């Protein structure tokens, strides 16, 4: 590509650079705009990294955006300094030392842009699926084939996977591991062991202080002393028994002989700890870990062990960015009042057979999607998420017939099979359910406004049940 690389041709006008049919938007600290929506429509961003903290905040905003228009946008760092920050180190597309180098990065931007057009834009109906799809999209456009963990003091587990972790706060880093495990189960990535870490069983933080504590009272306030065995008289006791206040000599308290030569007339067969808190003596101290985040003191056997792996894309993972993927997750299948998707499909099949034989029976299948529920899940954690889903089932059950069926596709998407229910009736029921659910969540979670969407489909006796279910999902998420 013939390009004019002379300085005089590269001009920054109102934070914009036009070059080779590309428009670069320049962000530096003078923008003081952290609303990155301003970058909409530009082909690439040049981010002045003279102030690394500022650059980090901006880059994180870009890469964590939910819209591919932003998170996939090529970003080039100008005047970047050496840093340990994983966001700045890993989530840029090139480094520049002057605007002259726009010509050098333009090709990169075009290549990314071209790859972006090849992506599959279908939504995945789960938080984990959406998040991993976003990462897969990013990796596809950057020709990256593995997710590598990086040591990061800012991460609550001590490690970060920049491409994925950028979507979470430091405190939410444990969720990153869960999403990676989910993706592993889905067959999108393949783990290659890198390191083992232990997390607090209360808050999942990896910042733990390990110390020896008294097995009787758990205090770490202890004094350790060597035991001394005086061979001639068989006396054995802690070294303080042999010490005096006058000099450094050691004298046996039993026979008053001075200790002369270790191995000849005495030895130190072991160590004894004395707890200054409860006055107990012990040799086998307990090892406890104190969480530096929530201060929970835990026996080390109750810590949560996690493998930190290097994840490589599988064949399925490589094609998922351009072809999409179907989740086979079954984790939300044991909530009382709901069934798993596999059973739902079987029951739907039977219902379909009944509908085929009857000229009057109408059955409606509905898909409910709690669109922004993951913002809430991120805040409340897994236990409360589970509780919420259980409450949700109770509310739905109270408003449908006992013979109707509920199934979770994911923690944000569920299906209802409403027997003997036509479209109008079903629509009314779902409107009521939407209002009740929204109120339930709002009331219990500090006014959180959940965006509940739904779509209905009356079973058509002419089409296969599975096909109709797929169509419902496709129509909804398309």
């Amino acid at each position, binding site marked *: 590509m013939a390009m004019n690389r002379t300085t005089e041709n590269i001009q920054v006008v109102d934070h914009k650079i036009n070059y080779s049919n590309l428009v670069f938007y320049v962000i530096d600290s003078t923008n003081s705009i952290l609303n990155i929506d301003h970058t909409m429509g530009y082909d690439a961003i040049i981010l002045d990294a003279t102030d690394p903290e500022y650059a980090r905040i901006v880059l994180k905003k870009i890469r964590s955006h939910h819209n591919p228009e932003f998170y996939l946008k090529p970003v080039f760092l100008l005047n970047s300094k050496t840093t340990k920050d994983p966001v700045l180190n890993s989530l840029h597309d090139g480094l520049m030392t002057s605007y002259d180098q726009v010509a050098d990065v333009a090709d990169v931007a075009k290549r990314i842009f071209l790859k972006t057009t090849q992506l599959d834009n279908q939504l995945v109906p789960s938080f984990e699926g959406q998040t991993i799809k976003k990462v897969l999209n990013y990796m596809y456009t950057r020709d990256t084939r593995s997710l590598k963990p990086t040591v990061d003091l800012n991460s609550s587990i001590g490690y970060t996977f920049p491409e994925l972790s950028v979507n979470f706060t430091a405190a939410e880093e444990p969720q990153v591991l869960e999403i990676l495990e989910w993706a592993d189960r889905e067959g999108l990535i393949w783990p290659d062991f890198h390191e083992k870490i232990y997390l607090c069983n209360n808050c999942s933080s990896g910042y733990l202080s390990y110390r020896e504590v008294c*097995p009787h009272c758990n205090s770490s306030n202890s004094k350790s002393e060597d*035991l001394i*065995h005086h*061979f*001639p*008289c*068989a*006396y*054995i*006791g*802690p070294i303080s*028994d042999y010490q005096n206040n006058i000099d450094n000599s050691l004298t046996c308290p*039993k*026979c008053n002989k001075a200790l002369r030569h270790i*191995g*000849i*007339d005495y*030895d130190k*067969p*072991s160590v*004894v700890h004395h707890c200054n808190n409860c006055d107990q*003596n*012990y*040799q*086998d101290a307990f090892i406890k870990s104190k969480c530096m985040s929530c201060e929970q003191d835990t026996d080390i056997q109750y810590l949560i062990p996690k493998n930190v792996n290097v994840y490589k894309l599988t064949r399925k993972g490589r094609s998922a960015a351009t072809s999409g993927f179907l989740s086979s997750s079954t984790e939300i299948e044991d909530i009382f009042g709901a069934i798993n998707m596999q059973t739902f499909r079987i029951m739907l099949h039977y219902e379909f057979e009944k509908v085929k034989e009857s000229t009057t029976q109408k059955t409606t299948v509905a898909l409910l999607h709690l669109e922004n529920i993951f913002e809430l899940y991120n805040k409340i954690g897994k236990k409360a998420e589970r509780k919420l889903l259980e409450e949700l089932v109770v509310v739905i059950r109270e408003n449908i017939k006992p013979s109707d069926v509920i199934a979770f596709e994911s923690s944000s998407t569920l299906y209802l099979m409403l027997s003997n229910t036509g479209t109008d009736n079903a629509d009314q029921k779902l409107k009521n359910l939407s209002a009740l659910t929204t109120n339930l969540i709002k009331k219990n979670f500090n006014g959180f406004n959940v965006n509940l969407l739904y779509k209905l489909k009356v079973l058509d006796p002419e089409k296969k049940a599975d096909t109709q279910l797929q169509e419902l999902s496709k129509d909804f998420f398309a």
Partner: protein
Amino acid sequence: MYYLDEFFNYISSVGPSKIIRVFWFFFFFEFVRFFLVDFTTVLLWKMTAIFRKKRVIDGRNMLWAEEPFVSIIVPGKNEGKHIYKLANSLREQTYQNFEFIVIDDGSDDETPEICRSLKKNGLIDLYLRNEVRGGKASAANLGLRYATGKFIIHLDADCSYDRDAIENILVPFFVNEKIGAVGGDVQVRNYRDSLCATLQSLEYTDTISIGRISQSQLGIYRIISGAFGAFRKEALDSVGGWDIGPGLDGDITVKVRKLGYQIHFEPTAICQTNVPVTFKALVNQRLRWDKSLIRFRLRKHNDVFFPNQSFKFANFISFVENITYNLILNFKWYFYIVDMVLNFASKLIFIVPMNLILYTLNNYFKFIVFSMFRDRKNVRNDYYMIYMPLMVLYFGFFLRFVRTFAYLQELLFKASYEDNWNPEKSSKQAKALKL
């Protein structure tokens, strides 16, 4: 038949004076000491029991009123396999105000894992381990150093105890405050395992237990078995705990005696232990025990024989009796044999069988008489009856020869210092310092 006729002719022809001349060793020494003295003292003990009864009841009441904290210490190497049983045996005790301290003297088997697990589950109160073996005395001393009880009970890991054993061994301290240490009665658990074990069981039942009742009454009881002994902690602290063995059980008893305390044998505090099942293992055990008589009575504690500031008549008598009957008479027996060979050579074919019959009858008689004094038996009396004739060989020859060999080894070569029962580092120092 001819021999039997001759034998009975000989017996009937010799008058009482001749019988005493021929069997003087038996009549003047063994019968007197090991039957008459024991029988008389045990009979007196039994007859006076009624007078002691109130004091014993009062002592027991005082024990329960005070309910002192007691430290049970169990030193040993590679004893992990026995500790769980022992811990369970202790949990069954009527007296429960104790701490259970296990000292692991450099075990190289699974003992540390077993003991840590038991500690974690609350079956052991304190588990201390020396990575390097220091010997039984140092292990016991480590337990003593960290014991917090008013009384210390020393147990062996491979023993088990009657439900009231701990209670019963503590009662004497409250009956007589001058008692500084109490020995429990050790019975043989594995008496059916071999002939060797059966003979030892008979020995423990008939000689050791009864002998200790008698010694205790005479105030000359001198060895509290390491398998089951209780001490006032202040007494053990005063003597600095145990010294290097082998023979440390007798040594610590003598040290406590020297402080002026009385030593008591408590026949109702019952412990069961396993004894060696082969004669080879028994020989090793007895050589170790017997050498300690020379090392500790004749050498280390020979001050007991001399009138000095700490001279005590009871200690003197205890030592004299011990030395006389175990050391002097042991050698005098050979003198008796020489006497018989030189003076009665032609009659030996009658004298030897007569001797065996005499001792066997005496053993039966003793066993039957003493069985009246045994309240708690772990073996039925009739079980022993067929083995009784063998006791002449066991006591009169086997143990005597072992004892003789041990005495000579110790007298001539100080062989106890070479015994690998102690680690070399300790034995070397003990030998150099003539301890």
